[in-house]
């Protein structure tokens, strides 16, 4: 998994409103419940902002390790857990 390049689904619009980082699905198949959207916490935002079709998860984990003083295993677990959830919900896609 950490060798995969994940990127944002363009049918999820990210907005910051009233201090909340909102992910607003606009297409069917993502958050299909009425008015369903997602919020990210600070760690989630840091990961989300680094996602790119040019970067593997390993690249992202390395960058986060340089920026934050947390333990590498902890960062890796956080990143993989988040990406897993985002992928299940179709919020991120991966480059084949």
């Amino acid at each position, binding site marked *: 998994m950490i060798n995969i390049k994940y990127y944002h689904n363009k049918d999820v619009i*990210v907005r910051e409103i009233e201090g*909340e980082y909102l992910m607003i699905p606009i*297409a*069917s198949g993502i*958050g299909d419940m009425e008015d*369903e*959207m997602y919020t990210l916490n600070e760690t*989630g935002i840091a990961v989300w902002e680094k996602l790119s079709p040019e970067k593997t998860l390993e690249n992202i984990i390395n960058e986060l390790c340089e920026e934050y003083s947390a333990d590498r295993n902890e960062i890796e677990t956080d990143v993989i857990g988040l990406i897993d959830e985002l992928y299940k919900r179709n919020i991120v896609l991966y480059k084949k």
Partner: protein
Amino acid sequence: MAEPDNIKSITLPDSDLVKKLQKTTTPVSINFELTARCNNNCRHCFINLPQNDRNAESSELSIKEIENLADQAVEKGVLWCLITGGEPLLRNDFSEIYLMLRRKGLLVSVFTNACLINQSHIDLFKKYKPRELEVTVYGIAEKTYEKVTGIKGSYKQFRAGLDLLLSNNVPVSLKAMAIHSNVHEIEEIAEFCTKYSKKKFKFDPFLHKRYDQDAKRNKLIESERLTKDEIVRIEHNNFARKNALIEGCEHLIFDQDIDSLGRVFTCGILKSGFEISYDGKLRLCSSLLHPDYVRDLRQMSLMDAYNGIAKNVINARSDNKEFLNKCSKCKIINLCYFCPANSYLETGKLDIPVDYFCKNAHARQEAILEWKKSSELP
């Protein structure tokens, strides 16, 4: 689905975000009246111009202008957006506008008469679901429907459009205007709407006058207005409406007179929404057309326009004794159709009591209190 700590799903309207937005001082919604033109010619309508009105069409905002306004609204944290008209589907670029607004992260609703719905709209709405798709039902019988719309063949178009939406599982909310031309079948309309509507059926018996102040059309609107007794009767006959009025009684009928300190505006107009007319004018309430409360967005930014209007709203005071002695302190003002916008449309001034509204409100007050009393009997 279990969620890790760093992602959380929320649903409006019960989220903390909505509570925060309710506390903001500026609007959180933007309404685009894409066109004043309509394929129907409804007798009671306050805006409709002929669909081939080239003058009206040439003054409509372009998609670029709409995008620029949407960007300004999004920047201010606006979350909700309504596309309305006229009939918005008359715009050839409707789909592009709709998708552009969705891509801004706005939660977009659409008001339409459904007559022009085609397969490409279905494909669009299936892939990019609107938050709400509200369709007005003018009648159940072809004759009634077309008496209201004034267009032969419109009923078949409406049924075809609605069928296309329903058969493709595009959820619609159905609603009605209750007017003289259809009041004889309002209960059948309610039954039809309840059967097919995603949300509770709602109807509106209150007609306001035209934005263009066309005297002949205003006479027609007056002729379509229900009497106070008819309004009370249809509210009585609609279980949900009657119950809501009984339950909301204490907010609709206060125990004693209120003191508005001579303020002209006592509604929530400053928060109600950015209302953008088809030709690029900002209003804070779609029917508030007094020039002191309208700004041209082709000449200034959204927030400059908003601030200019807001200042006038806050400072507006009445010196009309009749208004100050009646509406300004009226304990059933929340039951009344009176507001400065409607007063202006009726009388040309913001603070003149309107006899028709007043009589309706008093008749409804009497009825609601009686219903409430009966509902409390053991």
